[in-house]
């Protein structure tokens, strides 16, 4: 029996029933830019970076199931411009100073910006005031870099069963909070062995005393960028 197939930028991609477009593409070694999609968690569709045209309609490829005969476009000039603008907005909404960030070289947002050839800020910076939480003996929270993807919220509630994090407020006021009366991480059950410790795509949830351990050139994304990871997998499997 032949497997169902859709086309992605003209290339035939076969898939298993139930797979999303981004999953099927990833399996086939084709990179669709993404930010909040995490292979271990159900898709959330919050960042919209993986938006593609499905039969001409804009859909998030992380939440849209692949279907036989779909015509999907991803690598178009218009979608690239939209993705660049999304990345620029995420940068100016927070305080992202990559040269001094522990996550630099391992950050999905940074790598996405480079992959999309984003060179400018594009918008005026919001410069929000977001104090860090250094209360925990082993963990630092730098909220300045939060992109509100909710991965830590879900990891902490679904996997760690601790509910350490939550999103509060709406629209421009939306922000990440720590679920403790004091609001401080030290007053939660958060531990470095938690799943929530390792899911943040950017540099918010950090190990203390471990920053800048890998020199430039040897950091995870210097060795293999998210694109290379997907495309390389396609070559070897």
């Amino acid at each position, binding site marked *: 029996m032949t497997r169902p197939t859709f086309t992605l930028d003209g290339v035939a991609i076969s898939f298993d029933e139930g797979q999303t477009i981004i999953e099927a593409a990833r399996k086939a070694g084709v990179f669709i830019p993404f930010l909040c999609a995490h292979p271990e968690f159900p898709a959330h569709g919050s960042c919209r970076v993986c938006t593609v045209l499905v039969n001409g309609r804009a859909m998030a490829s992380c939440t849209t199931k692949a279907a036989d005969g779909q015509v999907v476009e991803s690598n178009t000039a218009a979608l690239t411009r939209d993705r660049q603008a999304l990345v620029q907005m995420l*940068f*100016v909404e927070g*305080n*992202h*100073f*990559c*040269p*001094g*960030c522990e996550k*630099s*070289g391992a950050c999905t947002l*940074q790598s996405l*910006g*480079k992959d999309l*050839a*984003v*060179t*400018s*800020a594009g918008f*005026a*910076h919001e*410069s929000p*005031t*977001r*104090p860090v939480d250094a209360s925990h003996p082993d963990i630092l929270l730098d909220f300045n870099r939060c992109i509100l993807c909710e991965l830590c919220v879900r990891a902490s509630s679904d996997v760690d069963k601790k509910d350490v994090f939550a999103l509060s407020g709406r629209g421009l006021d939306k922000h990440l909070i720590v679920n403790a009366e004091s609001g401080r991480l030290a007053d939660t059950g958060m531990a470095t062995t938690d799943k929530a410790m390792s899911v943040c795509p950017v540099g918010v949830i950090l190990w203390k005393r471990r920053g800048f351990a890998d020199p*430039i050139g040897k950091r995870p994304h210097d060795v293999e960028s998210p694109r290379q990871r997907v495309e390389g997998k396609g070559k070897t499997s």
Partner: protein
Amino acid sequence: MTAKVRVATTSLAGCFGCHMSFLDIDERILPLLDKVTFDRSPLTDLKHAGPCDVGLVEGGVCNEDNLHVLREFRKQCKVLVAVGACAINGGLPAQRNQFDVGDLLRHVYFEEPGLTRRVVPDDPELPALFDKVRPIHELVKVDYFLPGCPPPADAFWAFLSDLLEGRDPRLPPGAIRYD
């Protein structure tokens, strides 16, 4: 012989690291100098820019003098380029944006332990600080951006080569950096 392209460079609220990285083009500066002449720049020590083809601006805007120089560059340069993280997003100096400038000055000149004289410098020669450090595109129109802290020498080289050859500048993939 065609006239040389006039290039001005300056560092506003920057550390001159971008200029150092520019100089890392090493001996390629010699063929560059066949085509380019430097106007106002730390390399020439000229104090004001004349009419130029290209202005390279390192650093963001943290005080009145920065703004004055930036406006001079925008006025005199046909093509204005934001060079480096600080010019593009404020960079390290902009990390003071979350604090009140008065508090910062008090902290540094009054409260720091070990100070021999406790006085906030207020000589009229000193340019007044702005409450926030701003990247340059928030104050003037910017034509191109060279990201990086600093941008690698190859980014300067690729960018200027394209510009001098009349091509739309395009950075090679590895030359786009944010750190």
